[in-house]
């Protein structure tokens, strides 16, 4: 609220930096006193290449906040929301520098008591030192790079000692390796070629996959990085075809994923195709199209609940409200808000003041049932429940081609340890 008001004042003096700053300080409007209000910040790359997935996440979080307010708020507090965008044109996608700026904006706003986000681990690395200094907790629905919560880097990402980066997803440390287990045990894959899209997420998940695949005795025939802006991957796929592995594992997101899927279908359709949650995306389905995308095995770092009967009402509401189908990270975002709301309730019930410190401590002690199932955190902020779901893309003629919910068929859970 105050934010927008202040900005408008600033706008009246475009071009005169100094005047604008004066207006900035003068424009702080006091929060209305008759209603107790806390703010949850949402930090996502809503501009650029990540906009589509970020929007789905944002809607999940907003929906949860609206639901909470409809149900009377949290422990007597109404919940306001401040959305900040970490995508910039300079980066063309998420920009760690902008994420750091956003973190500081949240820290500067005393009403913000917790954050949902960020989407990307690259943002998380820039934000966590700032958030830790203010003891402001963030619950990320999708950032899966393990470094940030690794105790080895505790001095960097939680310098004040307390975990402030919680996840309602599991990390790449499980998603990739569990899929390797699944591929060996269930898909009977003996040899694999690994590709990633050079992005932080893609490289991370592919590296963890590779380590586990080697550990359980799969023959890793190669690991190559793709330039996501490149149009032509026929060279590398022809090279892979020459090596004739049982499977290809792709770690990465849609930009390169669409082309990888298309060109594998053209050149080497018989190979088993596997990927991470970056391949769960309506844009991939419509961009590649059937039958080329048929038969991909992909994972999600959360239990699959979308098809549960209880979820169908939620999915219908989401689809109606936002005119798009939810992604699983829309669910984890909803869950992230649920975690925060629950924590506020518990703090309020215990009679403590609702502030960043108490809310952080409450989040640490979370034990609730969310859409995805029970959620609680270890002392690093990672989710205790580490379920990796596996899906197969299978054409459902009765649904739209880019319907994420119906074109991905749930086929089971990837095991945390191999069967033999």
């Amino acid at each position, binding site marked *: 609220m105050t934010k927008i008001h202040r900005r408008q004042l600033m706008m009246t003096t475009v071009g005169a930096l100094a005047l604008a700053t004066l207006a900035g300080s003068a424009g702080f409007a006091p929060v209305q006193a008759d209603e107790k209000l806390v703010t949850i910040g949402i930090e996502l790359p809503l501009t650029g290449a990540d906009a589509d997935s970020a929007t789905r996440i944002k809607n999940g979080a907003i929906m949860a906040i609206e639901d909470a307010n409809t149900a009377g708020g949290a422990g007597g507090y109404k919940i306001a929301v401040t959305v900040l965008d970490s995508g910039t044109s300079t980066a063309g996608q998420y920009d760690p520098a902008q994420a750091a700026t956003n973190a500081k904006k949240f820290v500067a706003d005393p009403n913000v008591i917790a954050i949902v986000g960020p989407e990307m681990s690259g943002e998380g690395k820039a934000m966590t030192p700032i958030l830790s200094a203010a003891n402001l907790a963030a619950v990320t629905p999708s950032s899966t790079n393990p470094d940030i919560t690794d105790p080895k880097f505790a001095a960097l990402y939680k310098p004040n000692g307390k975990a402030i980066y919680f996840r309602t997803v599991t990390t790449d440390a499980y998603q990739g390796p569990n899929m390797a287990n699944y591929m060996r045990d269930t898909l009977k894959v003996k040899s694999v070629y690994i590709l990633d899209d050079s992005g932080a997420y893609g490289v991370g998940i592919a590296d963890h996959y590779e380590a586990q695949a080697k550990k359980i005795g799969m023959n890793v025939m190669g690991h190559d990085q793709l330039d996501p802006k490149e*149009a*032509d991957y026929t060279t590398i796929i*022809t090279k892979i*075809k*020459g090596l004739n592995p049982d499977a290809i594992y792709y770690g990465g997101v849609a*930009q390169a994923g669409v082309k990888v899927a298309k060109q594998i279908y053209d050149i080497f359709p018989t190979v088993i195709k596997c990927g991470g949650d970056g391949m769960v995306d309506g844009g991939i389905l419509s961009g590649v*199209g059937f039958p*080329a995308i048929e038969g991909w095995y992909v994972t999600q770092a959360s239990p699959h609940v979308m098809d549960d009967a209880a979820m169908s009402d939620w999915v219908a509401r989401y689809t109606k409200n936002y005119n798009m189908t939810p992604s699983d990270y829309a669910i984890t975002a909803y869950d992230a808000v649920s975690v925060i709301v629950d924590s506020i309730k518990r703090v309020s019930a215990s009679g403590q003041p609702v502030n960043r410190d108490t809310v952080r401590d409450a989040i640490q002690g979370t034990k609730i049932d969310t859409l995805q199932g029970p959620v609680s955190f270890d002392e690093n902020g990672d989710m205790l429940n580490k379920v990796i779901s596996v899906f197969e893309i299978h054409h459902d003629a009765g649904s739209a081609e880019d319907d994420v919910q119906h074109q991905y068929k749930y086929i089971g859970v990837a095991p945390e340890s191999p069967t033999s």
Partner: protein
Amino acid sequence: MTYNDVLLQQVINGVSLGAMYSLLALGFTMVYGIIELINFAHFNVFMVGSFFSRWVLKLTGLVGQRVALTGFPLVGTLLLALVCVMLFCGLLGVAIERTVLRPLRNVPGTAAMITTIGVSYILFNVILLTQGADAKNFPNPMPVVVWKVSGADLRLREVLLWGISLLLMGGLHFFVRRTRLGKAMQATAQDQEAARMMGIEVDTVVMTTFFLGSALAGAAGLIFGLYYNFTSYVIGYTAGLRAFTAAVLGGIGSIPGAMVGGVLIGLIESLGGQLLATRWTDVIIFSILVIVLVLRPTGLFGRMIIRKS
């Protein structure tokens, strides 16, 4: 697949890539030959071309991957799309030249080049903002026909790509060598002042050059879509840079040079990816660019540029 088959397959891939680069490189080389300008807008005229041809194909009722045409409908549809996209991109190129480049033609320094970067950015973002960032499915009306050459696959789309490219390059060669306007282009490239004094309308020549170069970029855009079955707002940048390298390698200003340079770059890309790693492809290609520029700035077929002092 034996190793030799893999290599053969990579050669087929490389030549296909190269054919596309050649078509794009022609636009660079022609414009540079006439007005000594590196036209960065060319990158994205190509990209816009592929979006435009996607739209034309959609209008004919082709969507997605599951409609295969054969015989006359196939040829007719492709021909229609080709003519439309070449006209559209040709006119787009002329429009760019007329509106923003002509006023700067006699301004020394880098003004014109910076302008083309600006135009390129505008085209790029207009497509990004109106069409979205995700890769778009490109209609594919071609039936799946595969010939086995030893152990390698030769598909209909490759043959078609080579055919269209050869036809267009042959047409361009004929135009430049045999027609009045073509000869005027040659003369202007040699010496603009002298050409003007001989009564050649330099403005017309420059416009024709932009039309032809951009039309070929449009054709490349269509071929790109048919070959890869997708298009996206980012395709112009990488392809454009490689095509430019091809033009330099062949000898900037030389039309046969652009053709040969394109195929060479395509082969370097595919065989380099096979023998080294694709992650280094850009590094290899830029190294070639630098090495050629430093050691042999005239390229393989470049004509001697007499310094005007």
